[in-house]
């Protein structure tokens, strides 16, 4: 106990020092530029307090004064603080669009087949369910391999793990009604450079994908192996409620893929294994003169993946190297903000409307993004899709939009009123000081993390896209039906271990069985002190209520990640249609996920009532 009180005293002193430093700095009336020059203010707007304190999440205690700065004491010596980097030096990359090979015969290795081709080195263990009924029309080949990646010109080249050499990986552009097959090779190197494991399972989040191609956490495969993933690109309901083509109101648009290897997801995704998968159809066409007339893809329809990461100090043995904290079980917060793999890049925009597809790529942080003008006033935007699902109508956001890990928000931003040369910023104003979750403080616009600079160009440009202010209609929310069963899940921590209904994950532990095509109601409850973004694979859910209230407008659609705040109570409506097999539900704070905050459920034609709310084991 002597240690604890000693640590508390040191923590108190550290916090007092930080506060004193801040007062000194304010008293000296230094400008923002002076502070950046002195290395006391990060380009993201965070003060770097002196005496070993940093803007990074404190490992052992700390907190905030509600001023956007996190003060903490590092109980463990040598925790690095990332080197300073000059913001907005490089253009934001847009991941390349994946190109199919000519035909099935052009794939490396044997022709694809329904059964796992174990003899030829395939890692798959179960036959494709829809290989003959929804045969692939296009074939892709992807190699997971190490590549040299520049995340910022002032930092050294990083050895990252990639899909075909880029971070984020190449973007798949897919169409409903056009099934594809991706042959996925594990060519990762023997040397991991400090974290990550060289066995992988790639999840398509959140396709209506048969289990064997979903990227279940236990379907990982080793170096030298490959895995054929068959994505039918088919609407939910096609073989059940809405034959033969499925329910158009279940259309999805912004999906992503990422590694999902059990226990090592956080490390492998942090190391680079993630990318976008976009789905179009006859309404969301990618052509702004047809269908819903959403901004033209790819010129004005831009995927953006946000991550926060840490890098070793420049004066250490591995200067400027990407670092993953292997000793963190709460959640990892980075002090560098990356968009599409670059730290604080810029992006040129023309004077018109854009569709930005925002994705929080983790590992743990929650964002609340605003578009901030140079004078720090707010530029509202419209949310049109939540988790890649178009809402019934656009929703005007005047107070930013919150995005937890793995959530996606498609937004329409209008730059037509800005003079050429205007700069705007995608600005995270949500204060978060540790992995437990954000505080509810929204910091001032000048103190946020300005993660991307948007530069308005002078190009003349036309805009044929729909004006969200005219309140266009997209899809209806699919009709619900009476549920066959209600299941209850509590997300909590027990003996320092993350649990769902007091249990932990194991690959062979089927916690409950869902009867195919049944409707279910799930009640999710958050624990004390922690926030969790909960992801359920396979089919999109609807939020019936949040703390017994009707959810907000942007949550009145379809989702695959639901944010559980402290002690939140959320009711979800589900159907699990068309396919059978195993799927997980898990916290998408990838640190929690890797520490067993996950369960397996199976879909079959019988089902069972395990984890039902009536089961007194749980309530």
């Amino acid at each position, binding site marked *: 106990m002597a240690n604890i009180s000693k640590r508390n005293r040191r*923590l108190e002193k550290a916090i007092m020092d930080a506060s004193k430093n801040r007062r000194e700095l304010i008293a000296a009336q230094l400008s923002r530029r002076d502070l950046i020059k002195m290395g006391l203010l990060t380009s993201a707007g965070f003060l770097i307090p002196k005496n070993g304190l940093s803007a990074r999440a404190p490992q052992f205690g700390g907190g905030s004064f509600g001023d956007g700065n996190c003060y903490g004491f590092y109980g463990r010596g040598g925790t690095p603080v990332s080197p300073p980097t000059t913001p907005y030096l490089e253009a934001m990359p847009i991941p390349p669009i994946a190109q199919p090979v000519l035909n099935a015969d052009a794939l490396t290795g044997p022709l694809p087949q329904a059964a796992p081709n174990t003899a030829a080195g395939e890692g798959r263990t179960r036959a494709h369910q829809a290989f003959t009924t929804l045969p692939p029309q296009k074939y892709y080949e992807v190699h997971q391999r190490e590549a040299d990646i520049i995340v910022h010109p002032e930092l050294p080249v990083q050895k990252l793990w990639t899909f075909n050499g880029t971070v984020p990986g190449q973007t798949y552009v897919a169409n409903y009604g056009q099934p594809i097959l991706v042959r996925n090779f594990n060519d990762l190197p*023997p040397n991991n450079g400090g974290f990550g494991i060289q066995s992988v399972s790639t999840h398509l989040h959140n396709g209506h994908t048969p289990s064997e191609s979903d990227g*279940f956490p236990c379907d990982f495969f080793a170096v030298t192996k490959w895995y054929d993933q068959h994505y039918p690109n088919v609407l939910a309901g096609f073989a059940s409620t809405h034959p033969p083509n499925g329910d158009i109101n279940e259309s999805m648009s912004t999906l992503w893929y990422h590694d999902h290897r059990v226990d090592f997801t956080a490390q492998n995704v942090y190391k680079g294994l993630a990318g976008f998968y976009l789905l179009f159809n006859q309404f969301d066409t990618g052509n702004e003169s047809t269908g819903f007339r959403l901004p033209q893809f790819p010129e004005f329809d831009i995927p953006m993946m946000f991550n926060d990461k840490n890098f070793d100090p420049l004066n250490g043995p591995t200067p400027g190297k990407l670092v993953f904290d292997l000793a963190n079980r*709460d959640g990892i917060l980075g002090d560098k903000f990356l968009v599409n793999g670059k730290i604080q890049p810029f992006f040129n925009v023309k004077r018109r409307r854009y569709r930005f597809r925002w994705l929080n790529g983790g590992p743990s942080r929650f964002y609340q993004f605003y578009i901030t003008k140079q004078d720090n006033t707010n530029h509202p935007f419209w949310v049109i899709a939540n988790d890649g699902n178009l809402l019934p109508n656009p929703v005007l956001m005047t107070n930013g939009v919150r995005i937890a890990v793995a959530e996606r928000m498609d937004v329409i931003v209008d730059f037509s009123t800005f003079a050429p040369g205007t700069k705007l910023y995608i600005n995270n104003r949500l204060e978060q000081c540790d992995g437990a979750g954000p505080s509810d403080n929204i910091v001032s616009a000048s103190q946020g993390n300005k993660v991307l600079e948007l530069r308005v160009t002078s190009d003349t440009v036309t805009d044929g896209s729909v004006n969200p202010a005219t309140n266009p209609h997209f899809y209806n929310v699919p009709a619900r039906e009476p549920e066959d069963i209600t299941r209850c899940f509590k997300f909590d921590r027990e003996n320092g271990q993350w649990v769902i209904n007091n249990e932990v994950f194991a690959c062979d532990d089927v916690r409950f069985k869902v009867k195919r095509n049944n409707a279910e109601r799930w009640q999710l409850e958050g624990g004390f002190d922690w926030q969790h973004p909960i992801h359920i694979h396979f089919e999109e859910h609807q939020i019936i209520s949040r703390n017994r209230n009707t959810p907000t407008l942007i949550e009145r659609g379809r989702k695959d990640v639901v944010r559980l705040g402290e002690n939140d109570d959320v009711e979800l409506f589900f159907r699990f249609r068309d396919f059978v097999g195993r799927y997980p539900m898990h916290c998408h704070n990838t640190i929690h996920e890797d520490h067993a905050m996950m369960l397996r459920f199976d879909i079959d034609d019988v089902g069972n009532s395990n984890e039902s709310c009536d089961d007194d084991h749980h309530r």
Partner: protein
Amino acid sequence: MARLNRRSMLGALPAAPFAGGLVARASTLDDKSREVTRMRYFPNVELITHLGKKVRFYDDLIKNKIVVINFMYADCEGICPAITANLLRAQKLLGDRVGRDIFMYSLTLSAEKDTPEVLKHYAAMHGVKPGWLFLTGKPDEIDGLRRSLGFSTGNLKLDKEKTNHIGMVKYGNERREWWGMVPGKAKPTWIVESILWMDDTKVSKPAAQP
């Protein structure tokens, strides 16, 4: 990596079962990275085993080994006995590999009370076999070790409670820099499976998931 054509890939296939071994020999791996990992997570503090032997944490217990680490204390009730029982069954399932190429360590959260004698009694009482060491040492050093290894939380109030550090079991392969955690309350077969992922002399198979 050069793109394999079908022929070279097929040629490579018969070698696949040995690929792990080849990889292991080919790579003395990244010594600088290992060194940084050592400095960051594995302080080379002196500990005493339940057999009364003095050891250095990194040099003697971690370096070049597949290891299984948890924290406990001898008079812990509640979930502790169940976790110890699970690890005992895991030790039994792993057989004579424990002590040969897989090493199990239980560090005390109560260094003042848990002398080597107390731990020796604890190990004997539970029927612990060789290859699994119970460790004590200087309280502040063990506390530092606990935090370095990630048996901690940023929430200081929760961090004070010993019972918040007993739920997890860390597993790893120091040379390959693979580090994960498995819950101590998981089924012993699952704990064993997680530990065996660390064995790089075999190509890892997909997890058992009937």
